[in-house]
């Protein structure tokens, strides 16, 4: 725990944090039984970091990611999450939608592509659901460029069902990046892929990280976590260790 506090302190000394979660608690109710998934988790992520959140199944990794991504909210009086100094855990409506659309990108373990849309349409989806009248042409250009750089330019008109797992995840990453977010949140991005394909995806993420993208990746696989610049371990709903990756 002392290491963890030091680490937080060290980072905060260098630059101001991009994402800051302090004392975050989250409880789900399954019928009448409340289950506390996060019980005071702290996490500070600085620009340009690649943070891997490591933990066993049910440790609250995905919940933490959802909270950081503004898809969910902490409990009442259950801590605070800030992005670039602005609290997002108390944001509503447009502000939160804009945050999810512009500031962050989500990559899921099961890709979560829309089956009726083509590869190209899936990739430009954030540009379509945002202020689409002004962003559509930009999203089109950006999606085209990303898919091209991911080696999917020959797959633009295909449906997700016609792609391999690795290709689908690359489309999902392209979708997450299409609005040039400052942070990419990846929930077990290689969890559904074989080792070789998973490596390819991690290479791709590493490449984006090298270009300055901040990454927060959830995984239960230490080998995958090792690709990050910092590993944060989550247990019993709390961050128990934060250390630089070897």
């Amino acid at each position, binding site marked *: 725990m002392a290491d963890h506090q030091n680490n937080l302190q060290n980072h905060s000394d260098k630059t101001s944090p991009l994402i800051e979660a302090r004392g975050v608690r989250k409880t789900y109710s399954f019928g009448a039984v409340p289950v506390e998934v996060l019980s005071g988790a702290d996490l500070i992520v600085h620009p340009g970091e690649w943070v891997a959140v490591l933990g066993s199944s049910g440790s609250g990794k995905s919940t933490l990611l959802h909270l950081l*991504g503004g898809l969910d909210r902490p409990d009442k009086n259950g801590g605070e999450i800030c992005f670039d100094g602005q609290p997002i855990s108390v944001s509503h409506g447009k502000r939160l939608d804009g945050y999810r659309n512009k500031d962050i990108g989500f990559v899921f373990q099961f890709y979560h592509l829309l089956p009726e849309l083509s590869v190209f349409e899936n990739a430009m989806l954030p540009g379509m659901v945002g202020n689409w009248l002004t962003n559509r042409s930009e999203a089109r250009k950006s999606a085209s460029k990303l898919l091209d750089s991911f080696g999917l330019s020959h797959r633009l008109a295909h449906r997700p069902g016609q792609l391999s797992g690795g290709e689908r995840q690359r489309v999902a990453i392209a979708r997450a990046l299409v609005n040039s977010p400052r942070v990419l949140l990846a929930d077990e991005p290689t969890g559904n892929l074989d080792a070789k394909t998973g490596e390819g995806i991690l290479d791709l993420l590493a490449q984006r990280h090298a270009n300055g993208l901040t990454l927060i990746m959830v995984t239960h696989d230490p080998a995958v976590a090792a690709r990050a610049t910092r590993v944060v371990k989550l247990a019993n709903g709390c961050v128990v260790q934060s250390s630089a990756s070897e």
Partner: protein
Amino acid sequence: MCVAMVVTVVSVMTGFLDMLKNSGRQIVGDVIVSSGIAGLPYSDEFLVDLKGLKDVQGATPLIDTIGLLRMPYPRGNQKEVTHVQVWAVDPISLATVTDYANDLYWKPAENAAAAKEMAEDDPRKNLSEKILTDGKTLIQSKTGNPGIALGIHVSIGNERQRDGSYRPRYGWFMPENDVTLTVVPVSSQGKIAEPREQIFPVVNEVQTGIYEVDHNRIYIPLKEGQRLLRLDEAPLYDLNAEPDGQGRYPVIGTTPARVTKILVRAKQGVSANSLRAQVETAYASFSKRINADPTRNASMPDFVNVLTWEQQLRDLIAPVEKEREMMRVLFSLIYLVCAGLILSIFWSIVIEKTRDIGILRSVGASRLGVMWIFLRYGLVIGVLGSALGVLLAWLVVRNINAIHEAIGSDAPPTIWIGSFVLTGFFAIGLLYSIWRGKLLRILLWLLATLVMGLIATFLALHHGTLIWDPSVYYFTSVPDQVDWITAWTTAIGGVVFSVIGAAIPASKAADIDPVEALRYG
């Protein structure tokens, strides 16, 4: 389909109503002054007053009563007797207030072209101008006797053809026959006097376009009506004096002839209601003047009924209006079914697409944005459905007479033979799909074969069913103008109900928790 049905039905009914209203005004004028059984004296003077009003185009006196008409058929002693509405009229002034002169059915063709359009067996081809003149004057020119004009459906001798023309049935061409009219004079005290009858030669027949009228009404000269009903000018006896040796009281003057109604026609652009107010004022002034004159042998009734043509024909118009409104309401209930269908389909889609909605929320779609997706689809379905519905209704209504004619005629052999050939093709498709063993294809081909076979059989056996038989109904064609006010309101209603149907699932979609959707969707 709902929009098409509502627009088609209401358009046709509105057309009928307009037809009825237009005909109605043409047969009674704009304003009707009615008195009781005793009738209105000094009607000639009142007519002069009325014609002096700036908004009056014409006015005519008439007696409206009921009578029995003994027809010339069948041959022998047992002639058919029918009850009729008797209008004793001044045909010349009646023609300035109503369309009486134009409504006379038996007249020669106006020109050679019109004669050419008439069927070979149409009696009008061989008529002379005299029959029209006789009808216009209600005088039989051959004898100089007063004549009678019958509503075209009073006599069963007139058989209506599909083109709306008439042919004499069983050889009974009425203008060549006499009829006997019996009426019952009623005193001002309501006592019935001895029935009086008179034989009239039929000089023409009248087609107003309203079956109720054409089926019941007959026209005789006003003077004859007044005489038969004892409403004519008569000596006034002094009943307080001693009778002479023959028991007769001394005559001290004459009582004026009376009428029971006065029809008034407004000038172009003057409303019936405005004219009604003027006529009421004119009558009040006239009756005051007459009643104040001690030399008059009769007084004017204290009040008379002054009604507009719409009020007068309320019994005819109101049921059709009610039917139309009932249709509108009943068919509009279909909207609820549409809204329910859209709701249930969209609800299923929302459940099915829960995960996709979560994805959209994760990439920044707002709750309103998600809601709008479903509302937009509802709106598109509503707009497209309404537009197609109005288009379909327009096509049906504009071609309703051709459709009606097609339904009423035998199906052409080429059509039903072609349908059987098509059934044969479908049967081959069915056999092929059985050979391939694909169940869905077998079912679809089977359905196609059965439906086409049924259509072909129906067409082959169909021998024409006229829904609105012109020989029964008074109109010759079904109204074929779209009621655009109804079309627009129905289309807007269709859009609104589609959006309402979509709004509930859209709200549910907007309420979906993205985390739940992504985790369990």
